């Protein structure tokens, strides 16, 4: 779920890297220093969660590369009696949901590491599924390499200190090394090719599906809204906001520097608030989970293979 903050006035130290756990022996030259391998649970809607503990409260958190700041549920923040504040400039999640408040947690534990006092945004209850109590966002993740092994159900966390390019440990086969850009909010954009058209895409593991605005689609593909191949899907709603008209087009191939997703399911949305106001395409978990995705935030690359490549 994308969240674009115009400004975050209250800048506490939450976004610092977590203090690491027990001292580890120095890795051998060019060996990937693995910090943790977490149980990554696939929820029935396809989104993935991992265990995180805040102020002693353990729970499952959505892994959301498309958010900005990590978030804690409103209810849990209240139960933990966390001190709160209001953002001077509220943020907006995908679908137009306002994020107005932040909370201060005394401690946060992720991947065997522990941070002290940290700031988290407060998530409205309806954006979280049943027993998910938070969202893990780039403010925490971007200090590490984050490896999504969907097929094995593991989220691996590696230290960012390693030899450049020496990261694809899971296969000796071919892989794609895709340069990525991080905007000021930590959103990842990468170059992709969709049916031969080059464009940029946002990588958003917090979005269930992949979306593109109708305006972008019509502009890039020169295909009008009345084309016979466009199939109306009715109105869809994101984050319980006002529904917007949605369409499907039979795309053939989505390519990442050679690694391909065949017949990608990309929903075209009439309302750009829900799609891609500043990029060509938003890649949600439905597309991403067909890949093994290693995000080297500090190095500035994403490494991709098919999900089951070994």
């Amino acid at each position, binding site marked *: 779920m994308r969240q674009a903050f115009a400004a975050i006035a209250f800048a506490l130290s939450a976004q610092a890297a977590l203090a690491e756990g027990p001292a580890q022996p120095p890795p051998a030259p060019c060996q990937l220093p693995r910090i943790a391998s977490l*149980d990554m*649970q*696939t*929820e*029935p*809607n*396809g989104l993935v969660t991992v265990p995180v503990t805040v102020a002693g*409260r353990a729970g499952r958190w959505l892994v959301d590369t498309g958010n900005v700041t990590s978030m804690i549920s*409103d*209810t*849990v923040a*209240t*139960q933990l009696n966390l001190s709160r504040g209001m953002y001077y400039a509220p943020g907006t999640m995908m679908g137009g949901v306002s994020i107005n408040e932040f909370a201060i947690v005394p401690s946060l534990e992720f991947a065997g590491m522990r941070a002290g006092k940290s700031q988290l945004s407060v998530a409205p*209850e309806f954006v979280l599924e*049943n*027993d998910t*109590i938070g969202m893990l966002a780039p403010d925490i993740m971007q200090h590490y390499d984050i490896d999504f092994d*969907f*097929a*094995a*159900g593991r989220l691996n966390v590696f230290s960012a200190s390693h030899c450049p390019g020496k990261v694809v440990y899971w296969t000796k*086969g*071919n*892989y*794609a090394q895709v340069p990525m850009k991080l905007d000021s909010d930590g959103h990842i954009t990468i170059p992709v090719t969709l049916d031969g058209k080059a464009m940029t895409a946002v990588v958003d593991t917090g979005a*269930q*599906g992949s979306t593109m605005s109708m305006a972008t689609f019509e502009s890039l593909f020169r295909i009008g809204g009345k084309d016979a191949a466009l199939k109306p899907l009715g109105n869809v709603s994101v984050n319980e906001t006002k529904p917007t008209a949605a369409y499907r087009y039979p795309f053939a191939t989505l390519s990442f520097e*050679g*690694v*391909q*997703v*065949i017949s990608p*399911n990309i929903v075209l949305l009439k309302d750009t608030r829900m799609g891609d106001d500043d990029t060509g395409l938003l890649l949600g978990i*439905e597309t991403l*989970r*067909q890949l093994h995705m290693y995000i080297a935030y500090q190095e500035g690359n994403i490494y991709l*293979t*098919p*999900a*089951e*490549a070994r």
Partner: protein
Amino acid sequence: MPALPAQASAYSEFDAGIAARNLGLCDIAIAHMTAALGAPDLLASLRSGALLVRGDCLRQTDKNAAALADFDAAIALSPDNFDSHLWRGELLEHLARYDDAAADFSTLIRLRPDLSKGYVSLGELYLAQKKYDEALAQYATLIDVGSDDYLGYLLRAKAYFLKGAYELAMVDADRVVKMAPRASPGHFVREAIYEAQGKLALALSDINLVLEDTPDDVEMRRQKGIILWEMGQFSEATDALIPLKKLAAADGYTILWFDLARVADDEPDRDLESRSAAVNLTKWPGPIVALYLGRETPDDIQSFIAAAPFDERDDMRCQAAFFVGEWQVRHHAKPVGYALLRQAASDCPVDYAERGAAAIELSRLR
């Protein structure tokens, strides 16, 4: 150049199953998950998820026994999975296996005492069984556990209301309105309490407050028409219901109330046929609309109810008693009509508009 494997593997079947369910294509999702579960290489950690997704799709397609078997298997693999207990509990409740459903909802509370879902589900289950005190206990815990969120107070107001404890219900409803002045749930419950107490002007005031914020709220606009009908302001009732011609063209209840208001206002409802064109006459309350159109008989309505799912029959009987009663009175079968209206006034739950409306109509007819 690497590409996705051409031959479907256990993981790709699992992946395709999730995608199909998200698209609402349950038959396809069931096929993919069945293939995934049949593959020996499906990761153990994905197996319970595959069972859960397939079970949910089986439930959505009314294959309840198979769905229950999948939920049982998912829970055997992952005993502490929250969704598994929630979905199995909901299915068991639908199957009227209330004690088993209560056990699953209690497990939700044991697993996550800090979350509202278990208390809400268990409370609703008790309400469905008219176990008001047990429901009230769940909502009291929800208020203690929770936060300053109004949900616990809202549900407790509803439980008190259904129990007939109107004063206590009003205390909680007032609190909800104070906590969330722009949200309609508090006004909605308060309006229902006022209506049950016969304070129709106050009920109308709450409805108008909600409609100021959400003028297209179909349920509230229809309720406004009903209250005005109950107040004997038939012309105003018709005016309140007119916008729903566009907003809720397929809503049978709105069609029926519009007809009652217009006829009571001595205006023959000549365009009932065209206004009800979008109503599905085979789905409740469609058969009653068909009765008013002259296409069905009261006996047809009784037959429809007898063939309906067990847990829906009481509600249908209540509504049928009121609307068929009105129809009988209109067709000069007053003894039968009065008897049906008396039945609606006594048997309908207190939160059903037909209960108050029947009582008021009986007093008018006297």
